[in-house]
């Protein structure tokens, strides 16, 4: 087909204007780069007038979701600038809280109001700023009252969001040590060399903070 002599081709009339517009539309759509008028001419049937077709096409896309735009001396179809926000997809990734964060949260929940020093004492390791920030950002903890002790340290308490997330009515509903043990979460084996008395003491000691007392 392509070797049909030039003279013979010219015997055919140029395609109608609407058809030329379709052609330009298809070419601009499928091209990986902006296309010049000369290139359009070369690709379209003999006698076509892509410049004219471009004017019509450009007008046709006015106000649409995509536009016919000029890039240097070439033409392309591009998303309307006001719809750029559609070109992002939000993906939510669910991740488990880190061990440090969940432990810190647990200590605050069980001992609230708790200062950072107290958390560190219980965990036996320093609590990083990031861990606390993360919990604050999750809105699972918030600042409580300052302690009336030297340095007036801030305290942390759990929030309503925390209770909502964990399906608790109040922090008092957190299972106590006895229940944790009954659930098999606390190791019940006496330590080698440790007397059962120690175990009991441990439990009493754990009877801990005011929130569990009533």
């Amino acid at each position, binding site marked *: 087909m392509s070797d049909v002599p030039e003279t013979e081709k010219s015997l055919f009339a140029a395609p109608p204007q609407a058809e030329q517009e379709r052609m330009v539309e298809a070419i601009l759509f499928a091209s990986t780069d902006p296309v010049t008028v000369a290139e359009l001419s070369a690709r379209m049937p003999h006698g076509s007038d892509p410049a004219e077709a471009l004017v019509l096409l450009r007008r046709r896309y006015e106000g649409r979701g995509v536009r016919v735009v000029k890039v240097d001396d070439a033409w392309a179809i591009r*998303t309307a600038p006001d719809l750029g926000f559609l070109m992002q997809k939000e993906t939510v990734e669910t991740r*488990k*809280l880190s061990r440090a964060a969940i432990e810190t949260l647990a*200590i605050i929940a069980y001992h609230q109001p708790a200062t950072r020093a107290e958390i560190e004492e219980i965990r036996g390791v320093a609590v990083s700023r990031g861990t606390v920030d993360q919990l604050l950002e999750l809105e699972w903890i918030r600042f409580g009252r300052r302690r009336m002790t030297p340095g007036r340290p801030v305290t942390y308490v759990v929030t309503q969001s925390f209770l909502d997330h964990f399906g608790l009515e109040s922090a008092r509903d*957190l299972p106590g040590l006895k229940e*944790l043990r009954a659930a098999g979460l606390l190791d019940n084996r006496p330590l080698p060399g440790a007397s059962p008395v120690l175990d009991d003491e*441990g439990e009493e000691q754990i009877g801990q903070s005011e929130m569990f007392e009533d």
Partner: protein
Amino acid sequence: MPNLGRCCGARHVSEREDFQEDVTSVSDRLAAEALIVDVDGFEGPLDLLLMLSRTQKVDLRKISVLQLAEQYLGFVREAKALRIELAADYLVMAAWLAFLKSRLLLPPDPSDEGPSGEELAAHLAYQLERLQAMREAAAQLMARDQMGRDFFVRGVPEDVTRVRSIRYTATLLDLMQAYARIRTKEEFRPYAMDREHVFTMEQALDRMRGLIGFAGEWTDLSSYLPDGWTAEPGRRRSATAATFAASLELAKQGQIELRQSETFAPIAIRRKTP
């Protein structure tokens, strides 16, 4: 192989011309010859049967399976005569068709429970028709407008930027486990501390039993505290308590006497002289 087969095959066929009784006409013989030459080009016996069935120039539904079986058996015979190695499945098909042919030709045996020759023949015709239909369907499919050939996708797709947000979750069980982990750790801790900072009564008793023999005079109890337990208040308290308890025990056993001048005054002990 095909080229070689063509030249040799042709010669062999002409040499054996007189003995060809099954091949009835010249055109049939030529057809059989061509088939043998192309044996490598066939995709198995079913493909070959489909090809043979076309020579009947009828609707596949009206095909004569008997005639087809004969054509096929003729083909196999020819191939054998030409010493062309046929794959096993061609021979299996030949055996089956020979069986089918006998079923079709002989009057049905009422004691035979198996399917009749007609049923088997109908199934073969169905298989051929189905293969032919699938080939036509494949051709129609490939004749469709195809992407990248007839129609095209967007040349410059825009990347959808992914806005990734991370949602952290934890369950109540996670929380409980975390707390249990910490508490379990804490239960171990006093035990470890005992070793380091607690002076037990047993230790104090052992120590005082060894020293009591030297205590003829009233001596302040605090002087019985072991070395290294007096500086740090915690350790001092523990050692003092243990030593005091041990001295009470020794007094009870009648080994020492205790003396204190007034409340909170230093306590002194001495060996009880029997």
